């Protein structure tokens, strides 16, 4: 870079440029994926743990999904306790597993519950601190000491009993034969293991970690619990016109000018009319900055007219395209290449690429992206290749958004680069997500993350 151009690159410009490159990079990895594939996977408990054992008082079957008590029990420390091979996953709304009592044996002293990795495997779950268990012989709930609390019915041979964790309410819950028995506050810190215990001769229990269908209708329960949480959220009151204001600023931010005009006209004719001319005049001025130019350039890029985009930019905002190796120019040059590939002008694309790509400065991030563009040439049907994301509408939109942000940054009143990059709506979404994640990490990693895609998924109800 020559000295002259380096002086023209403001820090804001650099920030915006690298932001959109990062976004491209992200899209190249995730665009083909479905929303649910983006979620963090936690390993689930799948079997009983056979490494840790309670010294001969439990016998885990070869399928690692059943446990029995082989001996005659002598005293309280002869409990056969088995934990699952992995702790219950916690970055979610609910966790649940079930046991089926095959044989209640001599005394039916069977328990289901949750324990930590530090649990002594010779005691019933619930008897010790940091453990919780629902016991079959007395139907009591034991929660951290040897005295149980009235909880539910007893259970015996033929009964299916379930134990679960509701991370939203921080509660353990238990079921018997498909019916919810009750729930109790979960005060154990850290991760917990699904745990089963047997304590008298011939007792035998089979465990279902979800490989088989549960007897309890977990989906219905989850829907119910979610509805309860949603009700709390719905009861919050917000200003009635807040949504209108946010939509309006979104249209302004991205230069969807014609939509904005129609939205404003419609707002005036509703009953009662929604007047959204903000009190703060200078803010409104900044929001409307270069709206028409931004709109024209967006439409040009959306229709693949990259040459026209360049010439308009040279005319209106020469400072943006002055340095032909700036990020925004690179994005546009790549886009021109992509548009040539799209219409099948491969030779022209090759010539264009040879001419332009060589100018780019070396940076690993950029190299990858340029390689993605070039790779389109290798496929007879590039749209179906793994680089097909480049030919999707969303990539044009990304380039248009980058140009939009660069133009916003030419407004002398704007000092903050994030104002150019993010609409108000986006800042609100980021805030929700960050709050939910931060709360989760301060809460022992318990609970779900926030995904806009999940909220959108429920839009179409059939």
């Amino acid at each position, binding site marked *: 870079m020559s000295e002259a151009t380096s002086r023209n690159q403001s820090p804001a410009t650099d920030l915006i440029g690298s932001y959109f490159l990062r976004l491209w990079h992200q899209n190249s990895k995730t665009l083909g994926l479905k929303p649910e594939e983006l979620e963090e996977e936690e390993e689930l408990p799948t079997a009983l743990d056979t490494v840790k054992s309670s010294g001969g008082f439990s016998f885990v079957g070869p399928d690692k999904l059943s446990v029995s008590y082989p001996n005659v029990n002598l005293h309280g420390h002869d409990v056969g306790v088995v934990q699952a091979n992995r702790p219950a996953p916690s970055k979610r709304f609910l966790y649940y597993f079930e046991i089926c009592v095959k044989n209640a044996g001599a005394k039916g002293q069977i328990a289901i519950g949750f324990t930590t990795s530090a649990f002594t495997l010779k005691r019933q779950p619930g008897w010790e601190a940091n453990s919780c268990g629902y016991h079959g012989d007395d139907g009591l709930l034991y929660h951290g000491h040897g005295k149980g609390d009235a909880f539910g019915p007893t259970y015996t041979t033929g009964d299916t009993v379930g134990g679960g964790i509701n991370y939203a309410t921080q509660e353990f819950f238990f079921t018997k034969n498909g019916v919810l028995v009750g729930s109790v506050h979960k005060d154990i810190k850290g991760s917990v293991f699904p745990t089963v215990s047997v304590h008298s001769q011939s007792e035998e229990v089979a465990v279902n970690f979800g490989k088989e269908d549960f007897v309890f209708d977990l989906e219905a329960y989850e829907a119910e619990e979610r509805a309860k949480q949603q009700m709390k959220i719905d009861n919050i009151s917000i200003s009635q016109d*807040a949504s209108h204001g946010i939509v309006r600023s979104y*249209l302004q931010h991205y230069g969807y000018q014609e939509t904005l005009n129609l939205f404003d006209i419609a707002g005036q004719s509703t009953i009662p009319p929604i007047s959204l001319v903000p009190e703060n005049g200078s803010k409104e001025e900044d929001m409307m900055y270069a709206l028409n130019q931004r709109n024209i350039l967006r439409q040009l890029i959306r229709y693949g007219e990259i040459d026209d985009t360049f010439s308009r930019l040279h005319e209106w905002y020469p400072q943006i395209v002055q340095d032909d190796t700036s990020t925004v120019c690179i994005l546009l040059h790549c886009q021109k290449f992509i548009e040539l590939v799209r219409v099948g002008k491969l030779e022209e694309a090759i010539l264009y690429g040879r001419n332009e790509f060589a100018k780019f400065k070396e940076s690993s991030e950029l190299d990858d992206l340029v390689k993605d563009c070039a790779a389109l040439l290798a496929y007879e049907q590039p749209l179906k290749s793994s680089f097909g994301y480049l030919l999707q509408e969303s990539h044009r939109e990304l380039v248009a958004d980058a140009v939009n942000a660069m133009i916003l940054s030419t407004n002398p009143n704007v000092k903050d680069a994030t104002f150019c990059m993010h609409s108000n709506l986006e800042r609100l979404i980021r805030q929700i997500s960050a709050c939910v994640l931060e709360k989760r990490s301060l809460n022992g990693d318990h609970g779900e993350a926030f995904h806009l895609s999940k909220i959108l998924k429920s839009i179409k109800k059939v």
Partner: protein
Amino acid sequence: MSLFWIFIHHLAEVQTMATSKKLITKQEWEKKLADVKVRKEEMNKLVMNFLVTEGYVEAAEKFRLESGTEPDIDLATITDRMAVKKAVQSGNVVDAIEKVNDLNPEILDTNPQLFFHLQQQRLIELIRDGKVEEALEFAQEELAPRGEENQSFLEELERTVALLAFEDVTNCPVRDLLDISQRLKTASEVNAAILTSQSHEKDPKLPSLLKMLVWAQNQLDEKATYPRINDLSTAALEDPAV
């Protein structure tokens, strides 16, 4: 554990809770915000959902062209829905009922409460226009039989007919029925019923997202002090109050 120890234990917990609130500076928080991944198409969908559900048909049409976002409902149905809504809002209830039945006769057949509220609105409009005799006749013939079937309908009917008993309705206890907000209430009830009949959610997603923001911030307040967004219209981050 004795009560005393439980008390001490509880006290200690309260103290740690009070002192252990984490402080997150603006700089740290901005880094967390930057790490969040937001997809543009999803924001576009959210905006489209708002335009469609709130009935901004022209804007939705244009937004589809300008952003390439497909609406989640046939845009033609919005026009019809808005015509019904407008009719109720401007007091043309007979017209509105006709239009709803043109759209889908099942909507009113399966929604006795909605049908009653529309008829009630019609009675209100008759009273507003000073058509006393017509109003009475309508109340007796159309509304009273429905009131017999349902106690809450009957109470509503009595409240509405009470309007006739006052010479100066602007100063009577049931004057709110003549308010514009009553029309809006009925209009949005019809609007919601039509959306539901089209297998579409009756409320846009955006307002509940904003509520979720308030909720998520309140939840985190219990654990940490961090830069909040207090003004939804500017989405500005405020410095954490220490």
